[in-house]
């Protein structure tokens, strides 16, 4: 559908249907699922970052009131398969409970099952574990060194991934370029930290041979992984997709938790539940995000045109692999950002360490990479003495150059970066903003303007899997929708995944209503369990507007086509000679008309009136392939995600040099995600993403000390932005439709977050530039700012004295 077509419901400012149940406190989260005879799990964590388990004595715990079982890692490992690895690293084995050895402080060693969570916690304290401490490694560079103690001795080293890609003539471009610069930036380990922790409940019915699972989950192929690990057929596992998920943004992938409770439910013949408490979640929910060092070198000329880039990204993925190393792969699909950088050398390294395991975090590695790219552009501007926005404009891909093939093999769909920037500068009064900054500086404050421009690859095809693991042949990442018009003419459609606040029910209903020209509010959306579901890959990779929206669109088109065929048959005319309007089909020549109710009656009751070969009923399904990225990688190049949303951030930050507490005085974002399906949802995603980025850049970090202990275990130390830290944000809209999607829509689930850390870093560095200092590690905490300023001032004083 081209952007010129008039849309009635898509892009209109409609309410989000999910909101009603949530404002009434009637969401149904995993902890709200009432199961008769439910038992509760508490886990015992390791106190050591690395230690051999010499013995586990559960006798005293078993005698505690209400206790039903104490499960050790050894026993669970015998009964289940190890959890899946993304990379081909068979000796990095991962079990839900530690087997023989613990590999990070907090790792779960024993699971205790009791009548209540409180009783299970009481009993867990009585489990006695004897440990023999082992050498451990926390630091990323140290882990990368061949002399470090391997976290997995069988694997032989801490290296999980060490792959270098060269796209284009990097050496030649570097040799030809008159200017080079290099730098290091560090993205501290943070995460999305949803307010609801991960939780899962399972119940085994031996007579029906069905394992029912309710979970706070956002995970592709979740049921498959439970079945594999438990060694049961996949059609014995029934995951209930109608559980509301209390926030995820990538990380809710509690497979180890799910295997523990599923095994216990089968073993004990009672429903079993594990809801992480905050400490379980922070320390060992295996839900931390990227922890990454970037070494970047760029080759450019005196005009600030960047010709080539070398980037080494070293990620400390923690004690186990899972899918987390793939977070080094996804950014390959936008490795040059919005710029015409002609060649890139990318060295992706993932190392294990004795920190908690990582999981997918909003953007899947893209936000850290954007921070590195944007820092490079700021530094180039400083080197050539040009305005930072001007340098960006000079390097941007131009609107007429799309679709644009980047060196790593992805073709960007569309964009108009220059226009978005111009609109933001006009809206914000950039010259006035600079004057405001200078006035703040004159008043004795530190003040800086931050800028970032970046892309949000969207549509999620998972092409990084085969790119980083040759044994992986994934080339589809489909999504589905089924629509049924019942015997009374009411429409019900299905989605086949859980949601964690993205408004998928609203999305599907809006799209179907648009195509069928019926009020979306009258369409029921349901979430069948996984045994009744069509294929889905869950809401990852900023994909649902494109993929669920696409599947719903195509299903609705099939339904419409069936109605048209049915009606044309009644009229005795060709399908091309009828008009579909608001559910009624008419033929101008014969002046015949068939209403919605009449189609329904014929389809449901009058087989004798159906065209030959047409199935009775009004039911359609569509399983949608991702619009691009259908081929396996070739020569280290691959078409990653189909769509590329653009965002441009402009921020003014000021702070007292003695205190160092940044205040965001102005925040403007220009956002182009193509055709917006629901403006309220997209706005919320963008504002929430910015808030999350403010956390990652100023406040949040999982800090480990030199003893391997995590210091930030509660919300007293791991600080989430409150309403005081998040400013009013002004959004400037632009719409460049994608040519690859049904309405021209692109993704927006990661918007804001992908560029705000870079923008905030840019602002703070602009603020302290007059002092001759800069910050190269996120988060930039208040204490770091005031300390660095004090040190700089002391240094200046000393210089003056000398």
């Amino acid at each position, binding site marked *: 559908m081209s952007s010129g077509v008039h849309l009635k419901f898509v892009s209109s400012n409609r309410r*989000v249907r999910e909101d009603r149940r949530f*404002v*009434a*406190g009637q969401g149904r989260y995993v902890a709200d699922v009432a199961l008769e005879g439910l038992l509760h799990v508490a886990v015992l964590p390791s106190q050591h970052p690395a230690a051999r388990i010499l013995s586990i004595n559960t006798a005293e715990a078993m005698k505690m009131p209400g206790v039903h079982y104490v499960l050790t890692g050894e026993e669970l490992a015998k009964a289940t398969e190890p959890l899946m690895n993304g990379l081909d690293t068979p000796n990095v084995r991962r079990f839900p409970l530690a087997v023989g050895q613990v590999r990070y402080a907090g790792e779960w060693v024993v699971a205790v099952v009791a009548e209540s969570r409180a009783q299970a916690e009481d009993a867990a304290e009585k489990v006695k574990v004897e440990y023999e401490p082992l050498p451990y490694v926390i630091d990323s560079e140290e882990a990368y060194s061949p002399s470090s103690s391997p976290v997995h001795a069988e694997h032989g080293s801490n290296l999980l991934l060490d792959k270098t890609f060269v796209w284009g003539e990097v050496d030649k471009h570097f040799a030809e370029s008159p200017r080079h610069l290099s730098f290091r930036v560090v993205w501290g380990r943070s995460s999305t930290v949803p307010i609801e922790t991960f939780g899962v409940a399972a119940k085994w019915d031996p007579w029906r041979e069905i394992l029912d699972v309710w979970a706070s989950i956002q995970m592709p192929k979740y049921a498959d992984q439970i079945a594999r690990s438990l060694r049961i057929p996949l059609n014995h596992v029934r995951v209930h997709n109608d559980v509301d998920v*209390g926030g995820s943004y990538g990380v809710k992938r509690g497979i180890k938790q799910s295997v523990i409770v599923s095994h216990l439910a089968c073993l004990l013949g009672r429903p079993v539940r594990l809801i992480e408490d*905050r400490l379980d979640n922070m320390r060992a929910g295996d839900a931390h995000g990227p922890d990454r060092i970037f070494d970047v070198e760029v080759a450019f000329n005196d005009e600030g045109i960047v010709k080539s880039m070398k980037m080494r990204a070293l990620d400390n993925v923690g004690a186990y692999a899972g899918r987390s190393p793939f977070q080094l792969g996804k950014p390959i699909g936008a490795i040059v950002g919005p710029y015409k950088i002609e060649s890139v050398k990318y060295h992706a390294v993932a190392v294990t360490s004795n920190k908690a395991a990582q999981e997918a975090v909003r953007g899947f590695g893209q936000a850290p990479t954007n921070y590195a790219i944007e820092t490079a552009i700021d530094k180039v501007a400083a080197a050539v003495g040009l305005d930072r926005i001007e340098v960006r404009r000079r390097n941007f891909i131009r609107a007429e150059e799309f679709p644009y093939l980047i060196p790593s093999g992805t073709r960007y769909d569309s964009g108009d970066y220059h226009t978005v920037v111009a609109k933001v500068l006009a809206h914000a009064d950039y010259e006035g903003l600079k004057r405001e900054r200078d006035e703040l500086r004159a008043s004795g404050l530190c003040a800086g303007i931050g800028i970032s421009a970046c892309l949000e690859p969207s549509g999620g095809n998972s092409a990084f899997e085969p790119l980083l693991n040759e044994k992986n042949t994934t080339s589809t990442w489909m999504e589905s929708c089924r629509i049924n018009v019942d015997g009374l003419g009411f429409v019900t459609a299905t989605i086949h995944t859980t949601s964690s*606040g993205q408004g998928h029910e609203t999305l599907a209903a809006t799209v179907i209503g648009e195509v069928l020209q019926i009020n979306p509010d009258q369409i029921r959306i349901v979430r069948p369990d996984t045994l009744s579901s069509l294929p889905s890959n869950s809401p990852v990779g900023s994909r649902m507007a494109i993929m669920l929206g696409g599947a719903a669109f195509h299903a609705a088109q099939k339904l419409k086509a069936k109605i048209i065929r049915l009606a044309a048959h009644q009229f005795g005319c060709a399908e091309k000679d009828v008009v579909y309007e608001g559910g009624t089909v008419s033929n101008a020549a014969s002046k015949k008309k068939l209403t919605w109710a009449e189609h329904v009656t014929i389809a449901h009751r009058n087989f004798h009136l159906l065209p030959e070969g047409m199935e009775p009923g009004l039911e359609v399904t569509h399983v949608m392939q991702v619009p691009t990225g259908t081929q396996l990688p070739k020569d280290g190049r691959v078409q990653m995600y189909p769509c590329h949303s653009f965002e441009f951030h402009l921020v003014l930050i000021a702070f007292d040099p003695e205190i160092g507490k940044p205040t965001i005085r102005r925040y403007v974002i220009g956002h182009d995600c193509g055709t917006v399906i629901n403006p309220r949802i997209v706005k*919320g*995603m963008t504002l929430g993403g910015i808030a999350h980025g403010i956390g990652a850049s100023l406040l949040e970090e999982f800090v480990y000390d030199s003893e391997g202990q995590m210091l930030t275990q509660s919300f007293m130390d791991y600080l989430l932005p409150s*309403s005081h830290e998040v400013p009013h944000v002004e959004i400037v809209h632009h719409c460049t439709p994608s040519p690859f999607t049904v309405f021209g829509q692109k993704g927006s689930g990661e918007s804001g977050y992908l560029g705000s850390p870079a923008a905030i870093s840019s602002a703070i560095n602009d603020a302290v530039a007059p002092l001759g200092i800069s910050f190269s590690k996120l988060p930039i905490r208040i204490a770091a700012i005031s300390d660095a300023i004090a040190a700089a001032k002391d240094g200046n004083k000393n210089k003056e004295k000398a």
Partner: protein
Amino acid sequence: MKVKLNVNGCQREADVEPRKTLLDTLREDFLLVGSHAGCEHGVCGACTVLVDGEPSRSCLMFAVQADGYEITTIEGLAPAPGELSVVQDAFCETHGLQCGYCTPGMILAGHALLEHNDSPTREDIVEAISGNICRCTGYGQIVEAIEFAADRLRKANTPRGGRS
């Protein structure tokens, strides 16, 4: 031990361990699961209920301490099944939520503010919700919701106090 609690205008009784929190009691003994456990150490505000009209952390209060107070949970705000209060409806209008997990606490905080301030400034609203962490929205549409609700309440020709 036995506790008698006044929850949403009804007298409720439960037999609880002295160490049981008000949050767990509301959820497990009274099946009022709209109050949520977020951090269970008094920071995030997902467990917020009103105690004599003031937003309070039900995860930091024992059920036995709540004896004698009027407790209002999110289930007590809707005027009738399927009908929303002005504040609840305002959250729907501005989409002041996403996953809904912090929402009951956020709405109770907004409701409590508007009970004693019908013309809050943006700063008043930011302060009133600053003890409730939302990870989805970045707070923008929550602030808008409370502004919108305040406007509607000011224009409504109904006496204030009690249920909105």
